[in-house]
């Protein structure tokens, strides 16, 4: 136990006794009252703490360097990045604070969302001389962005904003139009990732505002939203924190990465890659983790067999974020329709893992999944980040771009000459 004041010992003993008595376990479960407005404006203060053991104390999300990483240090790190033979990595743009999801405009502008600083960027200019412009600021964790038919879409925590004709107005963005706002206002696991399908509907994740608990019924799900009409439907249930996904070019199905719960142990549960094969599937949270671990407290009698298992367990605390199917032509043929996935790297683990780009080969139904490390080397030693990949996107020429919100940079991985 880490907390040992005499006054609290009695409470701890009582809680332990309650768990030991069959039939009254439910009383021992942590309870969140989401019936009042204050819950949605001020999520539980223990949203990423509260369940840690003495051995886990001190594990906390690492803050990135406030001013990013100087360009010469980024260049030095890139020299140490391991890639398959024939691939090359270079800095495509830098000084992009907190860079998260990327989206291409019609005319070659790369739009980039951000985590902490509230900015959205537009990156323009010739290769080798990219200019980074702050086009929006003061938003609430605008990690999730998307672009379609000339318009930029930005998730501002509790609403999705549309900026019409954005690419023609980078110096003075038009007023935002709210296209969807049936969304909670908390920021804890409230940051988003936006993916258009071919019908022009957006896939939007809704994470629970805590680590592990019975979520309010309107969250822990993935919705599909039509920004033209504001109509929405629930596509997936039982999802914890998902901030990455893509539509399969082979089938139109949505696949997504998911960050599993914390504080269970260094080696469990595994983070996941999931595939929605039919509407309304339940992926297990909070009852079951990684397809085969019933939650020690919150399983509440459920069996893992009731839920859709992951396509692939990615590893514990690797933090899978942005992902894309590879649809370019630059890379060798075997990479076609593979998934590239950015692992942001651990915090809830004594020896970090992740901070790399994975390549996943899987058939359209989610069978025969295999993963390979594609690009690694940003994590040195046990906990020393030199960069943290947060998103990937395929460039028009078939190269792969990587957003890094630790170094504040965008990298380009190319193949051949």
């Amino acid at each position, binding site marked *: 136990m880490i*907390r040992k*004041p005499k*006054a*609290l010992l009695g409470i701890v003993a009582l809680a332990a006794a309650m768990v030991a008595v069959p039939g009254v376990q439910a009383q021992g479960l942590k309870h969140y009252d989401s019936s009042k407005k*204050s819950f949605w404006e*001020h*999520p*539980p*203060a*223990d*949203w*990423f*703490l*509260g369940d*840690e053991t003495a051995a886990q*104390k*001190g594990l*906390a*999300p*690492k*803050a990135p*360097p*406030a*001013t*990013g990483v*100087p360009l010469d*240090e980024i260049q030095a790190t890139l020299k140490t990045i391991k890639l398959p033979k024939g691939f090359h990595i270079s800095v495509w743009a830098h000084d992009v604070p*907190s860079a998260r999801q990327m989206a291409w405009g019609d005319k070659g502008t790369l739009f980039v969302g951000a*985590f*902490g*600083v*509230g900015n959205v960027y537009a990156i323009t200019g010739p290769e080798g001389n990219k200019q980074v412009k702050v086009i929006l*600021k003061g938003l609430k*964790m605008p990690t999730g962005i998307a672009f379609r038919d000339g318009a930029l879409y930005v998730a501002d925590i509790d609403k999705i904003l549309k900026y019409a004709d954005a690419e023609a107005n980078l110096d003075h963005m038009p007023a935002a139009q709210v296209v969807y706002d049936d969304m909670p206002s908390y*920021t*804890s696991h409230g940051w988003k990732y936006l993916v258009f399908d071919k019908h022009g509907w957006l896939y939007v994740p809704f994470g629970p505002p805590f680590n592990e608990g019975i979520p309010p019924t309107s969250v822990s799900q993935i919705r599909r939203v039509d920004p033209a009409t504001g109509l929405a439907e629930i596509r997936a249930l039982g999802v914890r924190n998902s901030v990455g996904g893509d539509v399969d070019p082979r089938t139109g199905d949505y696949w997504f990465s998911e960050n599993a719960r914390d504080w269970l142990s260094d080696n469990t549960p595994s983070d996941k890659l999931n595939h929605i094969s039919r509407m309304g599937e339940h992926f297990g949270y909070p009852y079951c983790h990684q397809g085969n671990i019933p939650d020690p407290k919150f399983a509440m009698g459920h069996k893992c067999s009731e839920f859709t298992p992951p396509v692939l367990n990615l590893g514990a605390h690797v933090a899978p974020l942005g992902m894309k199917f590879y649809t370019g032509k630059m890379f060798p043929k075997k990479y076609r329709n593979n998934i590239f996935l950015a692992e942001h790297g651990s915090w809830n683990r004594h020896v970090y893992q992740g901070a790399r780009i994975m390549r996943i080969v899987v058939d359209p139904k989610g069978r025969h999944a295999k993963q390979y490390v594609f690009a690694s080397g940003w994590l040195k*030693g*046990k*906990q*020393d980040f030199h960069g943290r990949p947060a998103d990937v996107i395929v460039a028009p020429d078939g190269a792969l771009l990587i957003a890094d919100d630790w170094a504040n940079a965008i990298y380009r991985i190319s193949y051949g000459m």
Partner: protein
Amino acid sequence: MNTALAAAALSTAAAALAADPAAGKAKFEPCLACHGSGAAPQGEVAPLLAAQPDNFVQWQLVYFRTETRKDPAMTPISQQLNNADIRNIGAYLSSLPPPKLAQGKDEQPDLTEAGEQLAIANHCASCHLDGFVGRDAIPRLAGQREAYLLKALRDFKSGARRGGGVAAMPDAVYPLSDDGLQALAHYLSRLR
């Protein structure tokens, strides 16, 4: 020295190479008027900054510079600093020994006790660490000026100060009463 400590020392050394504490000291010279050298603060509620973690100092300057954190004195000052200045100031302040304000006998031991209980119940040390020495972007609290601690807690409570992307402070203090904030500030300021 175990391997973890050796690795930590190495990474600190690597970080130190990129920044120049001597240049940071020169840049910090005008700041002494309010922040003092550690032993003798001058301003009304300006915090003591000696031994604050490097990345905490840097993030606060970036927040001031981008007006994410607003302060009539700090906003214009921070907007004259470039990235190198900010890295150098962080390196300088984090290299100083912790402040040691002169303290008399604790006139409010009940308040100290209440503050300690609140700190335990709210898991403060999970991030600020045992001894409240801070690390990374999380500030040292031990021995900070009581008036400043109370101002910071009240600013988080009122929403005047937000913190970083996943920073928990506004959510952590939300359920606490002002009496609770006063107890925490008193307890933490007396820690050595």
